[in-house]
């Protein structure tokens, strides 16, 4: 099933859960304007009552436990998934569920004791998934940071506090295992998502989940996700840089992400290790006064399997190593519409048109404002 079809079905199913209305709809509409003068007062009363209820809720004794600075793992249970080369430990009173083993192997739900059988479980989730995707995807919501597990695996952590959820995602480099069901060895990652709509659950469990992440281990050692260095080195003419012709907006629209991959052109399998550079230039090819300009990063992968896949006319992002740069505060006054030149050794460069820093119509990037902060460009993550 395509993602579009799945979204259609989920939206239709969600809307089908419609409860009865709180009041007679047409009569309510008729009264609506007459009620307006008292609406503000009613809202104030509701706010005060809700604040009192909320305060009482957070002060309930069983939810007022102080935060631990560390989480001891004595007595924790070990879970092993040999098919996904995955092992982790979790508290004995938690439950590990596999929501759909057939459709989504390698996906587990970790349920803390308070949520077993509780209605709040639907909006408080801990998911652990193992999949064939590169560990650096597009998790640049909120604040991102890099780290390493005790076993040495690199991870990208993204923390976000949204309107309704607090969320942390760890995306862990799980190497390039050659699993039994695969003809090829592909990059894999393990992803742990903690998402809660209830603050007390967040306060109680985010350190526990962070500790579970630190227990992640590989029963069998794997090759690096960036490829097989024993393969012949890729030569110029075997590959080229590609840009998927789209922009992304990390950290709102104050930052614009320029990301892409490489396309295999010809030749046998090879190992690519190259430095990719991004230069932010004006129309005459002069570097613009942006901190970190030009930026560079190391790109390493095997070709052709590591190349950026193209599907239905679109480049697919997230399943291979990619080059990624972020230009923060790109719309500061004094910066013209830039030309972004991406280059790599031996293969020339591609030109990415910069966004209009003062757009005349709504569109991507039109929410960017000069906030008086320095304009910077850097590789990501």
């Amino acid at each position, binding site marked *: 099933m395509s993602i579009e079809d799945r979204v259609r*079905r989920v939206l239709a199913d969600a809307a089908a859960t419609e409860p009865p209305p*709180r009041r007679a709809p047409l009569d309510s509409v008729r009264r609506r304007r007459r009620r307006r003068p008292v609406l503000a007062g009613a809202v104030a009363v509701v706010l005060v009552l809700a604040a009192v209820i909320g305060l009482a809720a957070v002060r309930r004794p069983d939810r007022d436990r102080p935060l631990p600075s560390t989480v001891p793992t004595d007595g924790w249970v070990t879970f092993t998934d040999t098919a996904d080369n995955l092992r982790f430990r979790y508290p004995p009173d938690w439950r590990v569920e596999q929501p759909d083993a057939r459709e989504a192997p390698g996906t587990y739900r970790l349920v803390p004791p308070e949520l077993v059988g509780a209605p709040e479980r639907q909006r408080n989730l801990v998911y652990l998934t193992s999949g*064939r995707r590169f560990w650096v995807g597009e998790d640049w919501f909120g604040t991102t940071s890099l780290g390493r597990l005790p076993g040495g695996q690199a991870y990208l952590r993204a923390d976000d506090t949204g309107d309704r959820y607090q969320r942390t995602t760890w995306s862990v480099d799980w190497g390039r295992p050659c699993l039994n069901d695969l003809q090829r060895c592909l990059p894999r990652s393990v992803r742990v998502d903690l998402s809660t709509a209830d603050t007390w659950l967040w306060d109680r469990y985010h350190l526990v989940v962070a500790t579970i992440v630190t227990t992640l281990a590989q029963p069998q050692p794997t090759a690096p996700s960036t490829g097989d260095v024993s393969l012949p080195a890729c030569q110029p003419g075997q590959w080229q840089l590609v840009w998927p012709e789209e922009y992304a907006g990390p950290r709102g629209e104050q930052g614009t992400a320029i990301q892409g991959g490489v396309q295999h052109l010809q030749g046998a399998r090879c190992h690519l290790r190259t430095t990719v550079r991004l230069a932010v230039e004006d129309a005459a090819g002069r570097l613009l006064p942006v901190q970190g300009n030009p930026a560079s990063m190391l790109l390493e992968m095997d070709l052709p399997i590591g190349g950026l896949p193209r599907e239905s006319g679109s480049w697919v992002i997230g399943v291979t190593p990619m080059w990624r740069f972020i230009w923060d505060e790109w719309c500061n006054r004094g910066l013209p519409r830039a030309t972004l030149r991406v280059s790599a050794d031996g293969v020339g460069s591609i030109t990415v048109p910069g966004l209009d820093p003062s757009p005349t119509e709504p569109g991507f990037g039109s929410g960017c404002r000069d906030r008086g902060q320095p304009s910077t460009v850097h590789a990501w993550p």
Partner: protein
Amino acid sequence: MARDDPDFREFFAGEFWPLRRVGFLLTGDWDQAEDLAQEAMARTWAAWPRVRGYDRPVAFARKVLLNRHRSLLRRAVVEARHRLASRSEERSQPDFGGDDLVVWQALQGLPARQRTAIVLRYYVDLPEAEVARQLGVPVGTVKSWTHRGLARLRDRLGPIYADERLTSTARTEADP
């Protein structure tokens, strides 16, 4: 006045519930959805002498709902009220399991513009040009929002959709 207008009654009977469902998909909250749908209907009623002559009065009502939703997002106080209220009493939520739950939660976590574009495109089944008209943005912007939203959903469903892509890629590479 439209109070006893049979046309408005008929319009209301046919369109209130779909509007309420759209409101729910935008907010994830049936109470907010009902408020949005009622506000949209109240304003449509106020403008009914003019709106009744439109080819598709529901487009007017839906646009009111979308604008109202956008205003709600800007009003942190109202959001806070709903957040607090939702903690004190259990809200009605879809009883999803497995990946559908992940999709639903991911949809709720999308930026409002991306979520709105996806709901209008894939639930209301509007063409991109109509979505653009309803949201007051260029078609290219709708394409971008939809694309980015779906990309995030794919990212959340990585194990399934990454496998699909790589399978197809591997087939392509095997071709002479």
